[in-house]
């Protein structure tokens, strides 16, 4: 396959995300300008200019009209995707780590950092009118000091609850009406780097620094499967084609700060494909020259994109070998 390399960022990629149809690809990096691309040919639609710090997290509304960014400049912005203008700018007390649109797109859940005497919080705001957003959360929970800092956040099915991934490796399911913990999944031993839902929203995959990725049942928060590698996993995604090609893809690699201090063989920055059920790795794709920070399947399951510490986003379309590969039972 001939990947398209998107070179729109000056610093390492933090998160990439496709919209629901998969025609647009959004990328955010540690530079303050997230980008929007046409995934089919890699043409850049534009950049969202306004933040003054690293953008940690992004999300797209289901109808591809709104785009939300959480940044280290202690603000969260909501953008109009068509024009690239900032519709609202919500100032916070600390930087914003994770953002996620609810399924219906009427609410946004976000987590904030523990910093400067402020606790890490999980908040939900109403965004039915994106131009005039009330910054006071409709639901608010303090994550610290009872739990470790929350990094990423996802909505459960029917917007009934939210799930957060934490710095100490646990994932917590919160009842959004009462702000109480419903369930805690404590399997990972190190911080959760990324969480992604399956296409139907019934399963969840977590990527952790403890070199594993785990598949969870969203309803019960039971750990179903574990995918083991030998390097920290920064991101993991589940294919939308669960029936025909039940695969997951893991991206990661040695941490950037350790690359020069460890004497192991170079590389290992490959995207690794695992069989979802057998937990067995069957293929790798090389390309990045730094660890992969974010990885996403195209919503049609016929390709994937990865964003790395090297600042590039690579968009891949699978060739026939992928479909012809038969797993040895």
């Amino acid at each position, binding site marked *: 396959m001939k990947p398209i390399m998107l070179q729109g960022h000056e610093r390492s990629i933090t998160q990439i995300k496709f919209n629901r149809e998969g025609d647009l690809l959004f990328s955010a990096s540690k530079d303050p300008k997230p980008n929007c691309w046409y995934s089919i040919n890699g043409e*850049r639609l534009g950049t969202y200019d306004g933040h003054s710090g690293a953008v940690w997290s992004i999300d797209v509304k289901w109808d591809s009209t709104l785009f939300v960014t959480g940044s280290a400049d202690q603000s969260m912005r909501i953008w109009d995707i068509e024009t690239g203008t900032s519709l609202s700018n919500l100032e916070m007390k600390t930087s914003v780590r994770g953002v996620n649109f609810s399924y219906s797109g009427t609410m946004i859940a976000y987590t904030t950092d523990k910093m400067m005497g402020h606790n890490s919080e999980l908040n939900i705001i109403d965004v039915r009118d994106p131009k005039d957003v009330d910054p006071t959360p409709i639901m608010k929970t303090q994550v610290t000091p009872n739990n470790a800092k929350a990094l990423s956040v996802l909505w459960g099915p029917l917007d009934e609850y939210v799930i957060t991934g934490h710095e100490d490796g646990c994932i917590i399911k919160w009842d959004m009406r009462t702000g109480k913990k419903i369930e805690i999944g404590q399997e990972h031993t190190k911080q959760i780097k990324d969480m992604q839902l399956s296409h139907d929203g019934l399963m969840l995959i977590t990527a952790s620094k403890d070199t594993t990725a785990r598949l969870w049942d969203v309803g019960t928060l039971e750990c179903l499967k574990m995918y083991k590698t030998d390097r920290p996993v920064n991101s993991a995604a589940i294919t939308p084609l669960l029936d025909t090609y039940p695969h997951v893809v893991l991206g990661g690699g040695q941490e950037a700060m350790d690359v020069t201090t460890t004497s192991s063989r170079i590389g290992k920055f490959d995207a690794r494909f695992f069989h979802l059920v057998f937990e067995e790795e069957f293929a790798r794709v090389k390309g990045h020259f730094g660890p992969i920070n974010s990885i996403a399947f195209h919503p049609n399951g016929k390709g994937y994109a990865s964003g790395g510490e090297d600042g590039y986003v690579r968009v891949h379309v699978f060739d026939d070998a992928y479909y012809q590969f038969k797993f040895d039972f």
Partner: protein
Amino acid sequence: MPAAEDTVKSSWADEVEEVEGGNLPPPVEKNDGTSKTITEYSMNDEGKKVKIISYYRIEKHRVARTIAERKTWRKYGLSKNDKPGPNPATTITAEDVFMHFLSNKDEEQNEQEEIKKKLLDQQKGQVKCRLCKEDHWTKQCPYKDKLEPLRSSLLGEEAAEEETPAQATPAEKPKIGGVTQGKYIPPSMRDGGSKKGESMMSSRGRDETATVRVTNLSENTREQDLQDLFRPFGDISRIFLAKDKNTGQSKGFAFINFKRREDAAKAIQVLNGYGYDHLILSVEWAKPSGTQ
């Protein structure tokens, strides 16, 4: 999508024409439905005329109306002034990559086990049990319970014995570091000082038993050619082609590291004496580096 893009310096014949014509020729666009070719002319930094031919493949996709609508949006932000189509400054078609399927999983495990074994071998001799003299720590000795009391009962006599020879031969070669004597000993006199240092190559742990040397290669040989030539015999871990520093041309020899020795042997058997690029190849086992 740009299928290929290359820059062709105008030939002398074109230049003459253009000097007469004066201005740059207008861009030419050819479009035959499935592909598009645009020929543009521009001046580069050195004041020379450059002809740019861009090839595009036109693909038609049937998509949902919303997606088609989104494709017509105007660009914004840093891309505001971009022309329709991908901007080569931000979008690059990367080199072909292949999905590497891991069918030979056992092999990889073997490799790791070998490394482990090597590490274990290195540790041998470093650790010696005081009780049974085997390769493990005294603490972990399986005969600890039986031997320990026996040893301590004997120790009183042994200690007395040990003292006499130590006094009798004080000029004996000092042990490493000479800490007991508290006297400086130059590195060259220390234990192991006379041993040759281990070379960088061997410490890197490259297994050279499956390496073949190819000589009498033609100047135009590239790594890719060798890859094509030797790949059929088995997995190759490394190809080294000696090249001239300045010209980048091959110096006529190369080393191929196979993953398995049998593959290397097969390659030697088949390719030694094989006619390649008007020359007769000579393929043989590589001598381990450092013993030449």
